[in-house]
């Protein structure tokens, strides 16, 4: 599938606007996704995620702004741009009277796959979604997780340049959910650009290279998880359960770059650090040199939930 990725971006959208009557659903949203990058659109229900991806997928007419997929302008009639996109809708979008193979073959034909190429690709996707042995069973006989996997498989079938997953794990059991997240991780590693919307913070943290926090139709902040955490001044907390010369240890640790605060407590030493993951080896080394015996370490990293609360004033699942 040919695509223009001269600037490295699979998706470029800017200033997208959409209103329904008096209701402004999307108000100037813009972001980009590079090849192999997984971008998370994080927001609560009603934030504008689904409207945004519906416009990006060419399902909805936008009132303003631009959307380019692999250099092709997207709109509801843009068949060239649509060839680059694989859509996995939030709700199951499969035909229950057809089996998995028939579902895949039907959508494959709509994307122009024919003959042996179609057969080969259907088999490949059945392997990816682990439904090869149930391929000829009607999909209304599948478990919820199997239906979800088929739902994703249809989006992957034509080797899209950009895969859009709209809350793909809603209502899925933990085992299937983990399988879906692993599949998305693999796709990103294989070079596919992924736009992933969710209101599960832990999914965004696990999968996404960059995250856009959307609320009331606008992107409130964007960047890596670390960028976002730092943007709002969130810090990690490290608790050393320790004995020995706690006062000297605390003083020495407080002098380290990246450590904002160090205090002696009844159990040991509490530290406020910029990045616990990066600083921890040095913290343990300094503690040891200053006569502190560390019996245990607790780390509380700053998370997107706190960031989201800070940016929007409400919890992610509201």
């Amino acid at each position, binding site marked *: 599938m040919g695509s223009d990725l001269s600037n490295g971006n699979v998706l470029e959208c800017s200033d997208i606007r959409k209103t329904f009557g008096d209701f402004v659903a999307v108000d100037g949203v813009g972001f980009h996704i590079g090849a192999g990058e997984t971008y998370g659109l994080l927001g609560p229900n009603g934030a504008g995620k689904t409207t945004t991806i519906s416009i990006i997928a060419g399902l*909805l007419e936008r009132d303003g702004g631009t959307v380019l997929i692999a250099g092709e302008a997207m709109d509801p009639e843009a*068949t060239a741009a*649509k060839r680059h*996109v694989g859509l996995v809708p939030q709700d199951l*979008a499969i035909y229950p009277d057809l089996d998995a193979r028939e579902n895949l073959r039907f959508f494959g034909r*709509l*994307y122009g796959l024919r003959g042996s190429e179609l057969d080969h690709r259907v088999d490949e996707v059945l392997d990816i979604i682990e439904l090869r042995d149930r391929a000829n069973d009607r999909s209304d006989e599948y478990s919820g997780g199997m239906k979800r996997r088929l739902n994703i498989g*249809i989006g992957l079938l034509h080797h899209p340049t950009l895969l859009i997953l709209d809350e793909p794990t809603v209502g899925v059991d933990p085992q299937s959910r983990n399988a879906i997240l692993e599949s998305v991780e693999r796709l990103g590693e294989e070079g596919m650009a992924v736009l992933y919307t969710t209101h599960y913070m832990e999914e965004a943290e696990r999968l996404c290279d960059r995250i856009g926090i959307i609320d009331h139709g606008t992107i409130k902040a964007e960047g890596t998880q670390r960028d976002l955490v730092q943007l709002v001044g969130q810090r990690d907390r490290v608790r050393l359960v320790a004995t020995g010369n706690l006062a000297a240890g605390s003083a020495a640790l407080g002098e380290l770059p990246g450590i904002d605060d160090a205090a002696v407590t009844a159990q040991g030493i509490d530290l406020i650090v910029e990045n616990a993951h990066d600083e921890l080896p040095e913290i343990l080394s300094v503690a040891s040199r200053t006569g502190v015996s560390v019996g245990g370490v607790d780390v509380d990293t700053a998370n997107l939930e706190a960031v989201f609360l800070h940016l929007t004033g409400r919890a992610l699942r509201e």
Partner: protein
Amino acid sequence: METAWTIATKDLKERLRDRSAYIVGIVAPLAMALIFGFALNPLKNYEFSATYAVVDLDQSEVSRLFIDDVLRAAPGVEVLQLATTEEGMALVDKEVNPFAEPEGTSADALFIIPPEFGTDVQSEREVELQVVGNQSAQSNAGIAVALARGYAGELTSVRVTVATIETLLQKEVDRFSTGLAVLSTPYPATLTDVTADTKQLDGTTFYAAGMAIFFLFFTVQFGITSLLEERHNGTLARLLAAPISKSSILAGKAISAFLIGIVSVAVLMVTTTLVLEADWGNPLGVALLVLAAVISAMGIVALVSSYSRTAEQAATMASMAGVILGFLGGTFFDVAQAGGLIASLRFVSPHAWFMQGLADLSAGDLGVVFLPVVVMLAFGLVTGSVGLVGLRRGMRP
């Protein structure tokens, strides 16, 4: 077009696995046609038979002629001649003879020819002929009355003719022989009823055709309303996200609706022809009528669906439209017989044009289907165009 076929093939595959499609498309109309054909259609292969008792108290040449040339000459009529009025009443009146039910001991009506009947007929006096009907055989008793009235009508015309002859000749003639001569004179003009007798479907074909078009409005729903089903199931979002046009999606739905409609009618036609000996008429004419009927049904269902939010709502509205138009169009009974406004109003229904087209085809050449076909196509194209615009506008995830 290839995309439309892909969508239509998928839809047909889904329908083939949906038992309700078989029930609505084939089983229900076939069952209804069979029920009507077998149970409610006694007129097919019907042979009239009646037993009339006669008490001839006159015993004249005129009364003998009435018994032989009027009663016995009527097809299917068996005449029992009795000597007395009491014997005759015993055959038709349960109050007179409540136990007279064994076979051969009852009659559908009793004719009592009074004394002086022959003399009265040949004079200008009032003639009396009594008919006593059996309450258990009201239809055949009614036919007996009709036979008597017919005889009275003939008698009046013969009397007028004989009186005219006497006036012209200025003398009395032998009224009996002159009357016989008048009766044997052929009518100067004959009336051939081409509207009622020849341009009517036989009962079996009528009900088979009626059920075919009645249920057609249900079967084509499977194609048209599946667009709304796709929206409900979320698959419409996938179709809209695919690199295909909205028109090809609509075309796919239209193709599947058309094929489902054609197949359901064809199955009904073949089955009723083989099982019920229905006579559908000239195959080419019938094919044109069925084609036009399917398109008109698709158009109306598309129009109704364009005003619906869900497939269930569309199915309900389309079914209501189908039932109202079906009754109005005379699929269950011939509303043309009702006359007046309703007989004219029926032509707002494509069902009426289909039934009329088949009836005309049964008596005429292929050209008679032209008007019904054109009208049904117009129904389909006008309603379908408006409906498709509405459905296209409503195509959103």
